[in-house]
């Protein structure tokens, strides 16, 4: 049975700003859904609507088949982890984790049992008596998750829970969240603007752009078959090389003098793209085009080469190439590249849809 259903959900703020025009999403039981998008696209708004912290101005929200539009957050059987953790500063870790259960009239013995079980799972046994200010950032994060877990809710909601942690801890907590979620099997809605976090955590991703879901699908779907140039640019790092181009009988025309052969081409303006990792260095005679190298970023395992396309025009188009392993090409020299047609992404320039 589907767990959480968003039917034609919309949000217009009191000041008349329409943050979410209309959105449909069906989340299966135990699924890990990540909402991702640039800042201000309405991720938090959507999550808070599911939580009940923001009113729903249009459409229906169903949790386990029940319409919960008008229900208080506490009655929706959800638990939320906030960006700044929002731990009660005057309560101990135990107090923080047990507060929700206490308010629901759970007996002391049951509370103690549940809190202890969760604390063991998260490695918080030693810290139960401490106050939040006596904890490190990572520990606070864990307590915040523990507080959500003890209630054993139907849905977990996370709003950028890792953005206050340092890079290393973030990677570790990311793995932990994923493992815990698998173990508990709780349906999860997770907001982030970090596409790596999104790709690694999600069963399915929702890419939001100005309140509209550009594409919903598995991370690999989105990577291999982005539906729009926006998704193509957003998913993957460094992001896809995208160019405005034309389809002509000679193939894809990136500029007056540069054509990439494509049989049975229609005519029209398109957006043509290829990921940095799909460009390959070849000999001059096999190359599709040449890149003038402007900068090289060596990361050890891979090398990112930034350059401009040598296509005869004065203002070259910027392009990034990602090469495996260390390379040391000379600046301002030419790099001959081939762009295999199997890895092309072509979008209609007008409808912005994948062709």
């Amino acid at each position, binding site marked *: 049975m589907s767990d959480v259903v968003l039917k034609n959900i919309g949000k217009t703020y009191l000041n008349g700003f329409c943050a979410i025009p209309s959105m449909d999403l069906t989340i299966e039981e135990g699924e890990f859904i990540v909402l991702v998008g640039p800042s201000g696209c309405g991720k938090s708004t959507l999550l808070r609507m599911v939580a009940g912290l923001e009113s729903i101005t249009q459409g229906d929200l169903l949790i386990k088949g029940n319409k919960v539009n008008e229900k208080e957050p*506490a009655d929706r059987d959800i638990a939320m982890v906030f960006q700044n953790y929002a*731990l009660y500063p005057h309560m101990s870790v135990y107090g923080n984790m047990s*507060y929700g259960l206490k*308010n*629901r009239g759970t007996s002391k013995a049951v509370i103690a049992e549940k809190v202890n079980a969760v604390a063991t799972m998260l490695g918080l046994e030693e810290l139960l008596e401490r106050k939040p200010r006596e904890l490190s950032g990572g520990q606070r994060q864990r307590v915040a998750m523990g507080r959500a877990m003890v209630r054993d809710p139907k849905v977990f909601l996370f709003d950028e829970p890792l953005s206050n942690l340092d890079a290393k801890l973030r990677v570790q907590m990311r793995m932990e969240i994923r493992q815990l979620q698998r173990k508990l099997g709780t349906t999860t809605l997770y907001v982030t603007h970090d596409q790596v976090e999104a790709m690694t955590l999600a069963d399915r991703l929702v890419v939001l752009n100005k309140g509209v879901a550009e594409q919903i699908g598995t991370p690999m779907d989105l990577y291999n078959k982005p539906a729009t140039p926006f998704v193509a640019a957003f998913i993957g790092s460094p992001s896809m090389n995208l160019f405005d181009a034309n389809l002509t009988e000679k193939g894809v025309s990136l500029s007056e003098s540069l054509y990439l052969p494509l049989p049975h081409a229609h005519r029209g303006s398109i957006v043509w793209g290829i990921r940095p990792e799909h460009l390959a260095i070849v000999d001059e005679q096999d190359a599709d085009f040449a890149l003038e190298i402007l900068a090289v970023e060596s990361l050890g395992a891979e090398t990112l080469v930034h350059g401009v396309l040598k296509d005869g025009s004065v203002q070259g188009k910027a392009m990034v190439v990602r090469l495996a392993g260390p390379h040391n090409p000379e600046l301002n020299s030419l790099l001959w590249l081939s762009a295999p047609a199997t890895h092309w992404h072509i979008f209609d320039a007008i409808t912005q849809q994948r062709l």
Partner: protein
Amino acid sequence: MIENRPWLTFISHATLMLGIALVALPVWMALVASTHPASAFGVGHIPLWFGSAGMETWQTVLFEQAGNGIDTPVWVMMLNSLVMALGITFGKIAISLLSAYAIVFFRFPFRNLCFWIIFMTLMLPVEVRIVPTYQVVANLDLLNSYTGLTLPLIASATATFLFRQCFLSIPGELVEAARIDGAGPWRFFFDILLPMSRTNIAALFVILFIYGWNQYLWPLLITTDDAYYTLVMSIKRMLSVNDGDIAWNQIMATTLLAMLPPVAVVIGMQKLFVKGLVDAEK
């Protein structure tokens, strides 16, 4: 700032000691004066060392009668003062906590207007509205009663404002977390808000207790029955007997007794008080 300059240390200590001496000297003199018999003051100089009548004076004043035309013993007036001071303090804190709670956390029409109206009452302390307030209290038959002593002084814009600032600094996420944890308005108030503002409450308690204890004009006006006299106002009354007959020893003993409770409150709550003024633990 840690500095090690002997001169600076010396001067700052000397200044502090001078300050202490200035403050303590009158208290010392009052203490000494209370131990001399009433007749010792006619001769024109003030004694600087303890006399022999101490126990006797203090006992009379405290348990029998305050003297100088006031027949009630000091302990009764002390009790009156205490009831009034605590009534005012708790009343003010309770009311301003609740009004600040409403103003900060609830959306109701004319919310801001309400706040500004409360804020404007800052301009209307008892002294300004004393005649109409007296009228109201008299009409309600509250002269010579504890209710009459405390009620008109309870509303407090200052405390409301202070709590409003304190509540506003509580992060919105915390409020939402409590909502998700199933805390209704009352639970939230008692479980989250009160404990989080307890240092503020303590600081206010000290300030308001002293304010209440030192009330003079209002009790003077509405108490005509000895049984409701408060300590601070009665001292003035004790001075209004004929010049030659003033029993200074009794007055001094009463004065010292009047100083004790505020001092006790300040010392007792010093730690919380300072914490409340300095940090808010958020």
